[in-house]
């Protein structure tokens, strides 16, 4: 008899514990633990990340038929006066820069057709053209204390923080063209960050400012729980 009760109560309590867990993000107690593990996963991701390895390339004929574009503003963010737009580059640098789009376009461009990986699970192939971030970093002169880069936008305060190594990867670009055409407003015009080795939410669109920092910047989604490193 007692044996039966023991088994039944064991099964019932296990089932209750499992059911109550559903739809639960960990609550006040467990959420920070899960966040701590997310930082551990960032560390592992950083170990796996290679600053040399280039992403698999595709033929332009393999481009996806659709390519979703997200922003957090209610409407697609656009500039009132595109000619007045400048990209500020500052923080822990020798020479802060204030670049017009033409100046950014005057760097040697990089074009590649790569697969985009979204944290949601979708992927899409597209061609991107832009200025390697590294070239801009060389011109501005990054100070040795800098370990991170913060990318700000005019999309309702959207921003993302990167580790310097990922930012300086040769395939990290400041993109101004999508599928061989001028970047459209829904894809982040006039200028967006692009890198095939990061998840989509890391690639800040509608860029306004690049800041080199010693402290780790967060990010719009990262601050809400998405993995900070976001490398693929």
């Amino acid at each position: 008899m007692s044996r039966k009760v023991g088994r039944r109560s064991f099964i019932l309590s296990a089932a209750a514990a499992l059911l109550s867990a559903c739809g639960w993000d960990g609550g006040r107690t467990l959420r920070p633990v899960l966040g701590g593990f997310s930082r551990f996963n960032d560390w592992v991701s950083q170990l796996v990340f290679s600053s040399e390895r280039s992403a698999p390339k595709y033929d332009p004929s393999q481009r996806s038929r659709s390519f979703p574009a997200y922003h957090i503003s209610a409407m697609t963010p656009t500039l009132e006066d595109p000619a007045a737009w400048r990209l500020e580059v500052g923080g822990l640098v020798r020479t802060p820069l204030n670049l017009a789009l033409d100046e950014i376009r005057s760097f040697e461009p990089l074009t590649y057709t790569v697969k985009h990986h979204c944290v949601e699970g979708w992927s899409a192939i597209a061609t991107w053209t832009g200025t390697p971030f590294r070239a801009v970093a060389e011109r501005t002169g990054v100070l040795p204390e800098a370990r991170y880069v913060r990318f700000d936008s005019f999309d309702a305060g959207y921003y993302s923080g990167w580790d310097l190594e990922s930012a300086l990867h040769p395939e990290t670009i400041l993109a101004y063209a999508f599928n061989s055409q001028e970047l459209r407003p829904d894809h982040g015009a006039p200028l967006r960050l692009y890198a095939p080795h990061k998840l989509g939410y890391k690639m800040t669109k509608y860029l306004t400012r690049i800041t080199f920092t010693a402290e780790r910047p967060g990010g719009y989604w990262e601050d809400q729980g998405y993995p900070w490193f976001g490398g693929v």
Partner: protein
Amino acid sequence: MDKPVGRHHWIVRVTHWAAFILIFAMVASGLQIYRAYPRFGERGGPYFANFFHNVAFPEWSRLGGWLAGGINWHFFLMWPFVGLGLLYLAYLALSGEWKKLVFRPRDARPAFEMVKYYLRIRKDHPPQGKHNALQKAAYTLIVLLGMLSVLTGIAMWKPVQLAWLTGLFGGFQAARYWHFWAVWLFVMFTLVHVVLVFLVDPASLRAMITGRYRGRYVSDEP
């Protein structure tokens, strides 16, 4: 009734129940993640054949509340899952227990005999051993399935850094697809496993908890 005999080492019992809880929670957090893009294939298609194409799984089946919550659960649970999986494999290898569990070609014939027994073509139960040949097949496959879910998971996590692994599974969307298939194989295995425990040998449930077995199918292996 005979006095109970030792059946399962504590490592087997701990990893067994931990695997059950971990897989349950990983499936639930995985279904939360699936919700964000409930199909397989590049944007714009074509899409893979999928019974759950664009299916929204009910809230009670999901863990995490939203995408980031699901991801954080999933990417936390994967560490104990891998760790305990390795502990179990190390135990199997070092104890020699693998000889009683791993399905080998010579088990094919006895497995067929077991099928005949279950289909009532054969009247007497074939020699059981610690695990009969069908059990060996099932327990070997479930270990392989665990490995497949870990490897397809890594392939989805690092499709650029580990592009060779992702390529091995047919690409990022295919890795997601196989990872998702693993879910239904785990679910089906668990259902059949539990039904057979209660139908064929309820004493084995107690053995998996206490480690000691007092039932009908006493192993004729040392």
